[in-house]
């Protein structure tokens, strides 16, 4: 292909535009061009050019979670943020960092470690030994991805304190700032976190940081059934021992549940609390390093169908039984695991499973999550949710990946305001947004 086929407006907007090639597909949809802006100004020019050309566009970081969400209804242009890879400001004394969207979580972690600090986000990939594969800060924000530390520190929306975005028409807008405490104006960071690129391109973000704990300890034990698992998780999470994470994992039906508790702090405190936690749980082995399944297991499955189940923590046993019942009915045996005390589990179904069976599994699971309403009187109509984060093409065709969402009318109205022509990641999100 020649550069001549790249529309002039696009070539003018960005120094690095090329024809798309193999490997540029977004959930199976092949784009025509890839633009790699070097900063927010160039990114704004790219989006303005895409607007003038009527092009649909999908933002991309390192592509770690690019397969998450529904396939775009159309994708003329991929906007790749990997050249936007500068850490703009690490104000160590303020425990704040500002960075461009294409900065990798691993790259950021290395910078912060020099000051004994961390961004308390550990989505699958980061906890693995090489630290790579966790994605970019833009991608993590856009997908709302989080790992075990979500119990104590929340998800990207809780740690982002400022955001700079580029709208569909190229308008650059910021909200928040670089101070942790700030209520001036609407917090667009919350809206863009988990928006899957449907509202605009995340160009830069500022995050609140935490001190890197001096010591860590992992207390793990096996639980024979959902009730035992729930009891252990509830005891750990309800204790005054300040666990940073309480995780659960079961690779296959018939195997015991593995419960893991992460304690962090100064060495003496971790030692004391480890003893106390072991006593509280009645058993358990102790290690300074995470077990192999930590932050991995089902959540880190490399292929197949990945489902995120969100629920009220007290419902853990019921949810685990619902997963088993739905899986048995569909003839599947998914791995199950995740941040049980924070009310988030993942179920991973192997790549080769029949699409119809996976669709039935998801449908049954949703029926269980939706039935009977909230566990508390007066609560919302849904007990929780089961969202298919990623699935093979056959499964995507057989089931709605997102399931029901309350407030969908408002979500559509938001999309209409931010992207009136529906050119950004069209069709990737809840309700076909």
């Amino acid at each position, binding site marked *: 292909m020649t550069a001549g086929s790249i529309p002039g407006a696009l070539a003018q907007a960005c120094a690095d535009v090329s024809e798309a090639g193999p490997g540029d597909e977004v959930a199976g949809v092949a784009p025509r061009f890839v633009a790699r802006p070097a900063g927010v100004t160039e990114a704004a020019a790219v989006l303005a050019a895409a607007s003038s050309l009527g092009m649909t566009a999908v933002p991309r970081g390192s592509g770690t979670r690019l397969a998450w969400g529904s396939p775009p209804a159309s994708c003329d242009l991929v906007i790749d943020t990997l050249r936007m890879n500068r850490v703009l400001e690490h104000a160590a004394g303020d425990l704040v960092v500002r960075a461009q969207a294409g900065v990798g979580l691993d790259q950021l972690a290395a910078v912060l470690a020099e000051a004994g600090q961390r961004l308390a986000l550990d989505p699958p990939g980061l906890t693995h030994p090489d630290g790579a594969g966790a994605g970019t800060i833009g991608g993590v924000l856009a997908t709302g991805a989080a790992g075990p530390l979500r119990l104590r520190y*929340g998800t990207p929306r809780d740690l982002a304190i400022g955001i700079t975005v580029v709208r569909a028409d190229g308008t650059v807008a910021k909200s928040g700032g670089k101070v942790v405490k*700030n*209520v001036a104006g*609407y917090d667009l960071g919350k809206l863009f976190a988990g928006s899957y690129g449907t509202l605009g391109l995340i160009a830069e973000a500022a995050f609140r940081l935490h001190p890197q704990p001096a010591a860590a300890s992992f207390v793990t034990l096996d639980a024979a059934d959902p009730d035992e698992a729930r009891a252990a998780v509830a005891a750990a999470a309800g204790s*005054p021992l300040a666990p940073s994470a309480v995780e659960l994992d079961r690779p296959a039906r018939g195997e015991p549940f593995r419960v893991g508790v992460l304690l962090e702090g100064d060495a003496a405190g971790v030692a004391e609390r480890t003893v106390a936690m072991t006593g509280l749980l009645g058993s358990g082995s102790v290690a300074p390093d995470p077990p192999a399944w930590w932050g991995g297991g089902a959540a880190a499955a490399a292929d197949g169908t990945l489902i995120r189940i969100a629920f009220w*923590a007290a419902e853990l046993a019921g949810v685990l039984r619902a997963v088993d019942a739905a899986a048995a009915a569909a003839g599947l045996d998914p791995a199950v695991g995740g941040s049980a005390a924070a*009310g*988030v589990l993942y179920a991973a179904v192997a790549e080769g499973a029949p699409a119809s069976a996976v669709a039935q599994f998801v449908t049954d699971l949703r029926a269980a999550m939706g039935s009977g309403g909230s566990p508390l009187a*007066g609560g919302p109509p849904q007990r929780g949710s089961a969202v298919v984060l990623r699935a093979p093409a056959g499964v995507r065709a057989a089931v709605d990946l997102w399931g029901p969402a309350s407030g969908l009318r408002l979500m559509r109205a938001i999309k209409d305001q931010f992207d009136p022509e529906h050119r950004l990641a069209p069709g990737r999100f809840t309700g076909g947004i």
Partner: protein
Amino acid sequence: MGDGSRAGGETHDRAGNPRHGRDGEAVRAAAEVGRAAIDALVPRMTEICGPDGVLTDPAQLATYECDGLTSHRCSPGLVVLPTTAEQVAAIVTACARAKIPFVARGSGTGLSGGALPRGDGVLVVTSKMRRVIAIDRESRRAIVEPGVTNLAVSKAAEPYGLFYAPDPSSQVVCSVGGNVAENSGGAHCLKHGFTVHHVTGLEVVTPDGELTWLGDGTGAAPGYDLVGAFVGSEGTLGIATKIIVKLTRIPEAVTTLLAAFRTMGAGGAAVSAIIGSGILPAAIEMMDALAIEAAEAAVACRYPEGAGAVLIVELDGPAGDTARETAAVRAICEKEGAYEIRAAHDAAERTAIWTGRKSAFAAVGRISPAYIVQDGVVPRTALPEVLDRIAELSAASGIRVANVFHAGDGNLHPLVLFDDAKPGAEQAAEEVSGAILDLCISHGGSITGEHGVGADKSKYMPKMFGPGDLDTMQLLRCAFDPAGLCNPGKIFPTPRLCGEVPGVRREPHPLVAAGTVDQF
């Protein structure tokens, strides 16, 4: 629409306009049309809320003319006091149909005029919706109504070993609904976060009257984070009718230290050293000599004599960790020049230490007839420089400034003191106050850390945000409230036009058609 000749209608037509509002014939004419429209709503509101739930008497209306920011006053056109979410939905529907603006109000303790009523609108007061509906110990969640007080949630959760972490100073009276609107913080948000970190679901009435849930309580509901968008939107996106909050395990240990320093510089250095050591206290508060003087005069808090600054550091968590951190903080304070350190280990001792700090705002009344409270934020490392500059501003203008602030997160609460009996004094104080906000912005901070923008600080928004930023924020507003009826005039200095509103009357407003008023 009513014609305004209804019995009793004329008794309201002196309803106040916003203090800083424009005057003149056109405005007055428009206000009278608004008055008639509101009078016409009274029968419907009475149907919805019952006669006890609708206030029309000017004397009663006047009690709602301001929130905690008393410099902005406006008597509401009408006050309604619903008891259920369905009533709120019916009220908002009626307002939306009649195109009458409405403002929600909880306990009215806000400090930015966020609940400042409209003379041509309805004030929806949630104070009768004050049930803690349910608590789920194991999920660490509670469902509450918006009028319930912040402290009541923690009291209800206490038997389960849990508490509601955000704790604004007004927590005894402020409402959770108001906290949601303002994304309230409090002294302990340094460690425990703000309201937005503790809300996982909201039942709301949207500005067109729909009763719907945002989020499902799990904190991981599919779709856009509408809860995150709503919290802190200052009542401009709808009215919350139920709130699902996260509850937090009551810490095993709490220790509170009071450290006295000769200078603000020494106190500030201690703050930086504490944070630099990797300790994250629950709270770090600081007061300067003038604030201490005021607190002594008001509540005799008996802080150490001769202090140029006092620091209150509170640590919470597991007992062993807290004890070691307390020792470390004590050592840091001594190293940085603290000449007296007191420690509290129980509730009574803790109260003794906090009394001075918590009374500081009210206490300045003892040393000054009037004052303006600011809420600017600076990066913590910029605190020493900013405090020096505030001192210079104070010296140059002759306006005294007492400093009380959340030092851990750089949230200043300078109290700008003036004598409102002296001509020009208020103006001079406002200038100093504005200059302090300019300082915050120039250091990369914010014009408000926890009080909100409201009616008070919207004029400063363009200093912090560009036109593209403000325009983009208002896209969210347009998605929720295209008609612009929900707490209009707050946050944004210039409202964005939202384009055509689906399902809304297309013909021009009668007054526009008659050439009486311009629509925009």
